[in-house]
């Protein structure tokens, strides 16, 4: 694995090998396993420097023309204006005024061509970095595998959403790296201890399970049992952190907003602070085949404040240098406006934004032509982005997965990262 020098503070404290092997005997894992960090100073440093991902998924396909690549006054530009951002010369759509003020923390890729207009295929390509249905893990699972402490205090890959897009995110990686879905900010179902079982009884049952595990694995391969055991451990850790799902601070909700997405962003901040490695927040409602402009007023109006608040908080708390922030969809929307004032699916020339850990801030990568119908410079796809995300986090995406007896490249070997985007 190649170390990313742009986001390396934690490397001074912990050996790279510990991360890759996922060992628990040393470093961060051991510290966490002991019930916390060894000293407040180290704890603060580790909290700040543990590499993480914040994924903000705009489900359905946000319009690039109404967000990151506006083209007012052109054939398909639509009705919106552009606004200047905190990066001189970079303009985005007027629907993102608060995000615009924080663009110096973000970069834009305006030249994505997935060659698919299908929701499912687009999502898989953006998450797995590979086209098609191949059994590869999502970037969140890869990050969980290689970046999460072995004894992570919380599930390492959490997805906060209102409804389900059930995916096998871990693929051939251990199940513990799979996505844990939270249906909003409510406590997950069955998080409390069973009513008829006292705490002592619950503890004894866990001990008994571990004893059986040890006996079972003494003469057998232990990978599967380890996986189950990790799941139990995660569940127990989450049960001990019930307070994460209790009432959110009114003061913070004033800042984030009281709608679902505001609450999700606030919970995302909490989960990242408390040790989750990848937190994905889905904001629904961008599949605007009709009323594209009114819906973008509504949806991006809802997105802008909570997202900007979260990004600002990560920066102010010293976490942005160690947190990769991705704002993405499964594709963009057609330049052509249909008879319902809608824009349809468009994977051929669209944009995302990202920032934070390992990403050069304030950059604009690639371009589309004057009316936005095709990529005119630096065409990239989900494979390039996948390498870029992981390399920004210090994971060598050109290496193989650490699977016994199998050599599976982490990223698509046929493509590379967007090197000019890496810090």
């Amino acid at each position, binding site marked *: 694995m190649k170390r990313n020098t742009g986001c390396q503070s934690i490397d001074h404290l912990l050996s790279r090998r510990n991360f890759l092997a996922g060992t628990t005997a040393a470093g961060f894992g051991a510290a966490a396993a002991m019930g916390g960090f060894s000293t407040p100073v180290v704890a603060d440093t580790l909290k700040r420097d543990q590499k993480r991902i914040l994924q903000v998924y705009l489900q359905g396909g946000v319009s690039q023309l109404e967000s990151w690549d506006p083209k007012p006054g052109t054939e398909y530009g639509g*009705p919106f*204006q552009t606004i200047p951002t905190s990066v001189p010369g970079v303009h985005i759509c007027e629907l993102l005024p608060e995000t615009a003020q924080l663009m110096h923390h973000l970069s834009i890729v305006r030249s994505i061509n997935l060659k698919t207009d299908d929701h499912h295929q687009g999502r898989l390509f953006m998450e797995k970095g590979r086209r098609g249905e191949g059994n590869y893990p999502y970037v969140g699972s890869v990050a969980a595998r290689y970046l999460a402490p072995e004894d992570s205090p919380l599930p390492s890959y959490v997805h906060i959403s209102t409804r389900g897009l059930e995916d096998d995110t871990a693929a051939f990686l251990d199940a513990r790296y799979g996505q844990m879905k939270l249906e909003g900010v409510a406590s997950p179902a069955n998080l409390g201890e069973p009513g008829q079982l006292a705490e002592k009884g619950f503890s004894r049952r866990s001990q008994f399970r571990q004893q059986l595990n040890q006996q079972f694995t003494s003469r057998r391969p232990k990978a599967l049992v380890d996986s189950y055991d990790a799941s139990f451990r995660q569940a127990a850790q989450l049960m001990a952190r019930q307070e994460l799902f209790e009432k959110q601070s009114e003061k913070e909700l004033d800042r984030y907003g009281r709608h679902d997405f505001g609450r999700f962003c606030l919970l995302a901040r909490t989960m990242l602070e408390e040790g989750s490695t990848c937190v994905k927040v889905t904001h*629904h*409602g961008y599949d605007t*085949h009709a*009323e594209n402009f*009114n819906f973008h*007023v509504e949806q991006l109006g809802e997105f802008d404040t909570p997202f900007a608040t979260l990004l600002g908080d990560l920066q102010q708390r010293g976490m942005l240098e160690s947190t990769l922030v991705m704002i993405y969809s499964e594709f963009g929307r057609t330049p052509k406006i249909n*008879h*319902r004032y809608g824009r349809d699916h468009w994977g051929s020339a669209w944009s995302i934004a990202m920032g934070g850990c390992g990403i050069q801030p304030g950059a604009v990568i690639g371009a589309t032509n004057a009316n936005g119908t095709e990529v005119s410079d630096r065409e990239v796809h989900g494979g390039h982005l996948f390498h870029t995300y992981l390399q920004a986090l210090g994971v060598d995406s050109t290496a193989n997965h650490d699977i016994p007896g199998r050599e599976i490249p982490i990223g698509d070997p046929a493509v590379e990262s967007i090197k000019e985007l890496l810090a």
Partner: protein
Amino acid sequence: MNDSLQEPTPADDDQPAAIDATKSHKVAEYKHSKPLTCCRIDPTGRFVFAGAEDLNVYRWNLETGRMMILAGHNSWVRSMDFSPDGQTLYTAGWDGELHWWQTDDPVPRSLRMVRAHRGFARWVRVSPDGTLLATCGNDNMIRIWSAAAGELVAEMAGHERNPYAVDFHPDGRQLVSEDLMGNVMIWDLESFEHLETIPTVMTGYDTKFAADMGGARDMRFALDGSVVVCAGITNVVNSFAGQQDPIFAVVDWESRQVLRHLRPADNTAGIAWGVRFHPAGFIIGGVAKQSGSGLICFWHKDEAVTPVKLDKKDRKAPDLLKRQADKDPLAVKPFHTLEVNSCVRGVALAPDGQRLAAPCFDGSLRIFQMTAKVEEEKAEAKTGEKSEG
């Protein structure tokens, strides 16, 4: 102001043809390369103006067909209105700007611009006496402007979601506005205070996509001020695919109740984009169908203002009325429907009451005559689109 319509008065030597909506037929079509968004015929009947999915307003001379461009906005124009004397055109754009134009300017240019709203300026209406303009926009504000000087007279806050349209009561003392959530708010124009809110079924929450859709796409008082009709949508099934139903809610001014729902003849999915009262006693509605074609529907006004008694279930849960036309107890079906080959995005009336204009998605501004065809028109019509009358 309302369209400057007078009850047609026959002249001895040149008796105009009798208005008969069932005989409506297309008599002209003006073409533009971009989809149209709205239109108005000026009070003198010389010009028809249209907004489009570009930065201009277009003016066609109804006699010669000559087109002129009114350039000045920086976004689409979706609403326009005239001074009562027809000399001034006011346009509201999605750039948030309100522009003043001389209607018959040989070389049209913006005479004045005010930044009316943050985000879209969605609507503009002129008061019956022509002294005030009312606008609404994406900053959730209703603003009142002096027509003569463009000065801000008052601003009224109260809508929690975007107000989409406004209209003055013909007595000039009150104003109505309707927002995304289908709430019709009544405002006093002396105190500029909110008086009352009337809920309608013109909104819906798309549970799959977690977003609201609704609001008035046009609203018009009857010439006598007895009712106001709001054009929009209801019965949201999948609004992201355009699957909801067009509706025209008739709100009784005296009782502040929704009297009836004007609906197309069948359970058509789409959006109602325009409504006008015809002085001959009928209401005209323009509809864009989900499929891509359009309708112009005609309802008898008498029927549209006749109350019906709801059963107990519907009285207790008015949201149940957000249902398909054939199951809606308040539904009024049109006495005539004109099929149009493209989505209809508004309707406008000529001052003589004989012609009707419809701006369409295919870039055509279609002009219909609401009288029987004369012989030569019959001959011309053979080359036209059959389905459009």
